[in-house]
Structures are given as C-alpha cells and as structure tokens.
C-alpha cells in the first residue's frame, strides 16, 4: 500500500511538471527526461531516497507497464516495416552508426575500467563481451524515432554479453516470448472480433492478455518486452485489428511511458563514470547526426530533425529496463541502464536547446505542435 501511495505521489508530481506551459509547447523534448530525473532523485541512492523494498514491491506493475508500452509500439511496427525505398535513407544512418559504435567501443574500454576490474566482462578492447557491450549501448543510444530497428542489435548483443559465468542468454529466451505473443494474438483474435471497437470488453481482454503474457514471460525468465512487441505486431499486422488503430489505445501510452521512465530513474545509482560516459556518448551522437546532415548524406527538414531524427527511440528505455528486471540483472545491466539514462537526459536537454535556438526561424504546422 505504501509503495502504491509513493508511486502515485511521484507520478502526480511528474504529470504536474510535464504539464508546465513552457514544456508543452516544445516537441523535440521527449518529456521522459523529467520522470527519469525525478526517479534518479528519489532512487534509494538518490538525494531524497525511498526504500528499495518500496521500489521492488511495485516491480510487477512496472513489468505490465513495460509490456503495455512495447505492445503499443508493436502495433505501430507494421506501419514502419522497412522496404527497399528506405534503404537509401537508412544507409547513411548505418554509416553514422558504425562511427558511433567505434567511439562507444573506445569510450567503454576507457571508462569501463571499473567494469573490467569487477570481472563482469573480460578485460581488453576486442573481447566478444566488450564488443557486444559497445554494440548494446551504442545501438540503444543511436536509435531514433524514425529508426527503431537499430534496437534489434541490442538483442543480438545479448547472446555475446550473457555468456557463462553470467546467466546464459540462449535462443529460447528470444523465441519463447515471441511465440507467446503470437499465441496470445491468436487468442485475442478468438475473443475479440477484428471489426470490434475498443469498448470495455475488448479493453479488458487486451489488459488481461497483456498481464497474462507478462506473467508467462516472467515465469519463463525471459524479457516481457519481446512478448509485448510480438503481441502488438501480431494484432496489427496479421489481423489488422480496428482496436489497434483506436486513438484511445494510443493515448494510453503517455502515462505508461512516464511510469517506465520514473522507475528507470529509481534503479540508477549515479557515479562519475556513468555520468561522464553517458554525457560524452550523447554529445558524440548529436555530432555524428549533424555531421551526416551537414555533409548532405542525409537530408531532412528542420521539423523532421527535431521530431524523428534527434529523439532517441521510445522503445529503447523499456527494453533496457526490462533487461535490468530480468534474471540477467546485475552490475552489468545496471551500468548499461545508467549510461543510457544519462545519455537520454543529455540528448533531450541538447535537442531542447537546439529547438529553442532554431525556434525563431522555424515555422511548425499547428498539428505537429499538438502531436
């Protein structure tokens, strides 16, 4: 009960801050930085600490929130399915990503000295673990709203990071949740007809399926976000469900993402290494993105830059947090989450500054502002 009260209080505070007039007018800023920062402040190792048990008591609610947010992202995946036309657009991004990967590898091998010392990964620049760790962090940070597919590299890296003596990430950890999502999609198809509106019974069924699938995946010791993505994709792609297109369903994403961000902050123990690494990587990310834009390899309008290119993919944080709540959790996932969160906040702050700088010359359509 206490845990719920504390969460509700923090959530209300987040909503209050996010609804401040100034912030609601900008659109490069993702808002998630606010709950993230508040979470870091209220973390058990933060400035105003809460008890770790309070955080753990609510981890079940967080797991459902993670599945729900990835489920909603999954319903939009079919709209973003890449085709050959995209290749031309994506190639420069992957080129930029390769550069970012190299920088990440160098920085991690430099800053991650503590990590090597603690024996979480084998020391050295070219060990599979170090390469995979750099792949993990760089792909999560470099992903953007227009290119969430970069995050698939995150899952590839898990096979190389989590090798003995750490808990082993095997093919079943990937396939079981995905298959569960497909099964639940079929179940949903039976309970709700494809033409149904998003009324109370269908909403309830969706909630029930998401909770059941989350419990199922957690019971299997795997990542619930994979189940969420799979279920969302199955519903929108295979069945072309009307309910998935419902604006009410999509609008439920915002408060859930706030909860996810708030909790992510609660799990962070700030250190100088995390801070320096996250900050540097965020700066490098922006530099590379602007390098691509200025060199002419990637052309985009200002508004596209601010809404799609610069903001980090909204899927990245749930995936990282899900990993930190899974049986694979440890100092390594803690490190990854910390670096990412600092990078995320820095990136948000920088894009906000860029937008403020450009605002005088920007003409943004009214509809975009409201989005």
């Amino acid at each position, binding site marked *: 009960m206490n845990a719920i009260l504390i969460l509700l209080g923090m959530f209300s505070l987040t909503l209050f801050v996010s609804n401040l007039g100034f912030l609601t007018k900008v659109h490069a800023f993702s808002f998630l930085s606010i709950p993230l920062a508040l979470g870091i402040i209220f973390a058990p190792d933060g400035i105003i600490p809460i008890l770790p048990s309070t955080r753990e008591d609510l981890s*079940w609610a967080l797991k459902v929130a993670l599945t729900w947010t990835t489920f909603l992202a999954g319903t939009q995946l079919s709209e973003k399915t890449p085709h050959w036309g995209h290749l031309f657009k994506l190639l420069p991004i992957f080129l930029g990503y390769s550069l970012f990967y190299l920088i990440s590898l160098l920085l991690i091998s430099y800053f991650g000295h503590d990590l090597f010392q603690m024996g979480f990964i084998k020391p050295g620049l070219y060990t599979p673990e170090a390469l995979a760790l750099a792949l993990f962090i760089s792909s999560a940070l470099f992903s953007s709203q227009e290119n969430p597919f970069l995050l698939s590299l995150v899952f590839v890296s898990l096979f190389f990071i989590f090798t003995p003596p750490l808990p082993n990430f095997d093919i079943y950890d990937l396939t079981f949740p995905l298959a569960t999502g497909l099964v639940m999609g079929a*179940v949903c198809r*039976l309970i709700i007809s494809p033409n149904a509106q998003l009324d*109370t019974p269908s909403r*309830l069924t969706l*909630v029930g399926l998401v909770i*059941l699938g989350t419990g199922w995946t957690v019971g299997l010791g795997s990542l619930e976000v994979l189940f969420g993505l799979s279920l969302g994709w199955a519903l929108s792609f295979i069945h072309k469900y009307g309910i998935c297109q419902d604006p009410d369903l999509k609008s439920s994403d915002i*408060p859930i993402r706030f909860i996810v961000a708030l909790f992510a902050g609660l799990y962070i123990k700030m250190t100088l290494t995390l801070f320096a690494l996250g900050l540097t990587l965020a700066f490098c990310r922006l530099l590379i993105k602007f390098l691509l834009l200025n060199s002419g390899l990637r052309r985009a309008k200002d508004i596209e830059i601010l809404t799609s290119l610069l903001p980090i993919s909204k899927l990245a944080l749930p995936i990282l947090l899900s990993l930190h709540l899974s049986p694979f959790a440890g100092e390594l996932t803690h490190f990854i989450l910390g670096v990412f969160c600092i990078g995320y906040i820095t990136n948000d702050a920088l894009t906000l500054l860029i937008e403020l700088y450009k605002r005088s010359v920007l003409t943004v359509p009214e509809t975009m502002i409201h989005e």
Partner: protein
Amino acid sequence: MSDNAEEKVDLKLVAKSIFAILIILLSFWLIENPLGKDIQRNSLLALGLLVLGGIVAGRICQLFGLPSLTGYLGAGMIFGPSAMNIVDSNQVEQLRLVNSLALAMIALQAGCEFTKEMLEKNFKSLIHATWTHVVVVGIGMTTLFIIMKPWIDFVGEMSLIQVAAVGALFATVAVSKSPATVVAILGETRIKNPLADHSLGIVVILDVVVLVLFAVVLAFAKSSLSPETPISLNALGHLFSEIIASIAAGTFFGLFMIFYLRFIDRERMLFVVAISYGLTALCSYLHYDTLLVFVVAGFVVTNFSKQADKMILTIESLSSVVMIVFFATAGASLNLLDLTKVWQLVLILTVARALTTWLAEDVAHRIAESPKMLRKFGVTPFISQAGLSIGLSMIIYERVPEVGPKIATLIISVVTINQIFGPILFKWGLNQSIKIEKSKV
C-alpha cells in the same frame, strides 16, 4: 461496466472464447511438459488468468441470463486452490491489493447513488427493514444454533449461555450482506427502481449496524466463553467514536472531491485511484470504517454538488477490470473442501438464514406498507455475502480461540453457498421487478 452490460453475447462468441482459454491452457501444458521448460507461478500469471477466465466465464453466464459476477466467481473457483490450483493461495493473497481499490470504488459508487430524494422516498421501508433484519435474523439464527446444539460437535460440552453466545456470533455475521455484490449487479443491469434503491440503502445501513452489533456480541461471547474476561464497554465506546470520526472524515473528503472535480478536474482516473488507496491507508491507520468513509464521501459529492456524474463515470470506466479481479479473487479464496466436510449443517444454516431474511423483509414491508414488488422480491438482494462476512469470521478466528477456527469454517462455508446463488437470485429478482413495473404501465 456499462459497456459490459451492452455486449451482445451469442453462442458462437462463447464457443470461441472457451476455445481461446483452452489454447492458453494447452500452450501452458506444452511448454511445461513436452518442452520441459518450467513456468514459475507468479501473481501476474494468476491475475491474467483470472481476468481472462473471468471475461469468458462472465460471457457464459450472460448467455444463460445469469450475472457476469457469477462467472467471475466461477473462474476464480476453477483456477483457484480448490480445483486446478493454477492460482495458489499465496497469489490470491498477493492480489488482495486490488481489493482495497475495489471496495473503495464500490463504496464511493454506492454513496454517489444515495440521493436525498431516494432516502426520503424509502425512509420508512429502510428503517423497518433495518431493525427487522437485526431482530428476526439475529434471534432466529441464535435460536436455531441453540436447538441444533446436539448436532454441532464443537458446542456439545457448552452451557446454554455459551451456546447462545456462539450462536449470537454466527447470527451477527448472518445479518451482514454484500454491498459489493449489490453494487456490481446494479451496475451490470443498470436497473433503477424501488428494489434497487431499497437494496442499496439496506446494505450500506446494515454494514454500520452490523459493526456495532458485532462489537457488543463479541464482548459478550468472550466473557461467557472465558469467565475471567469481563465485559468491557470501552471497546464499544471506541467503536462509536470511530464511527463518528468516519462520518466526519467522509464529509471532509467528499468536500475535497467536490473541490477537485469543480476546480481542477484533470486526470480523474489517477485522482480516483490515488484517493481510493490514500484514504484506505488512512482508514486502516486510524481504524476508521473504510466503507462508511467512502459512502459518506460519495453521498456528499452527489447531494452537495453537481459533480456526481463525473465521479460515477470515472469509477465505472475503472471498475470493470477491478470488479473482475475482486470477484475472481473472492472465488479463488472460497474453500470448497471445507464445505464438503460439513455440508449437512451448512445446508441447514444457509436455508435458515435465507428463510429468516425473507421473514425480516416481509415483516418490514408489511409494516412500512411498501409496494407489492418489494414484498415479493425484497429478499433477493440480501442472500449474497462476501468480504464483510469473511472479514468478521477472521476476527472471530483470532479473538475467540475456543471456537474461532470451527465457527469461521462454518461461516465461510455458508458464505460460499450464498455467494454462488445470491447474485443469481438478485438478478432474477431485479428482472421480475422490472416485469411487474412494465405490466403496471
């Protein structure tokens, strides 16, 4: 809840839904057996199964004209420890967190339905029904307990006064009703008529009356069963002060809700959840009667402002999932094994409670000269028993160690039967009352 009531359920949809549940269970079995992967049981798995199972069982019940609530209870019983044991008692315990929210919302909604006009219109029948329930059911059940002394093993050696004390404890719990069931059925059927008003009024009033009565009877039972414990009036004094404080707290928070809905009116769902949990925590800390606080708050909102519609709409949009979990968890907690051990005694006590409740209603409506519909179907809302009765049985279990465990088992077994058949009877009663109203028109 409103959409739920409007959902068109046909045989095809029910068959598909059952097939869907079978697919889930089959996949579960396939992963655990041929594939050899262990799925660790957790509260989310339990919650998901109860929600989906509740939806499907609710649809089956709707197909046969039964209340969805019966389906939710049934799903809980099937998946619960008494049958399949996919949801074990630990998980049921963990899911009780949802119950606080459910009870708060039920009480708030009940309070919002309590208008001054409704109270004025039904004043006579409410007053008379309150005392007849206490007197007829109370005395009737106590007498039955005394008569049946030779057949109840745990009171065999007791004196007449002691048996009367134990009987009075059982009888007090028998007087209690289920506000949750009444609010849920009224929400599902959306019926508003004298029977609906009467049932809502009585369950709320009796909730407070039973609490006072229980404190008195418990003190009497403790002193008669262990003579070294004197009757203490302090507990009663405390109880009265807590009730007055509960009414005051309810009024204050009702005014606070009016202020919020009138001047801020944002994130209503979050507000309702926050106030439900926050106020429940406060009530538990200060020993206030949670139900009374929320009912009074709802009453204040509905009678002293124009914000009741907003409040009811918000509660309804939240309540559908909460109700399923609440009743499915209640179903999973019902102990069917205990019921089978003492079924003859339980059957007699259940029938006797139903008869005395019917008699109490009949006497009340004859004195109050209520409409014929109330005289005929007035008993139907009051057969159900749920959370309050189980809660009181747990207090008996702890405070009266001499007979507590035995009498608690007996109470829970009677509650099990009442909770299975009560909602069905109430829905039938409501439908019949509507038919009478239509035939008059």
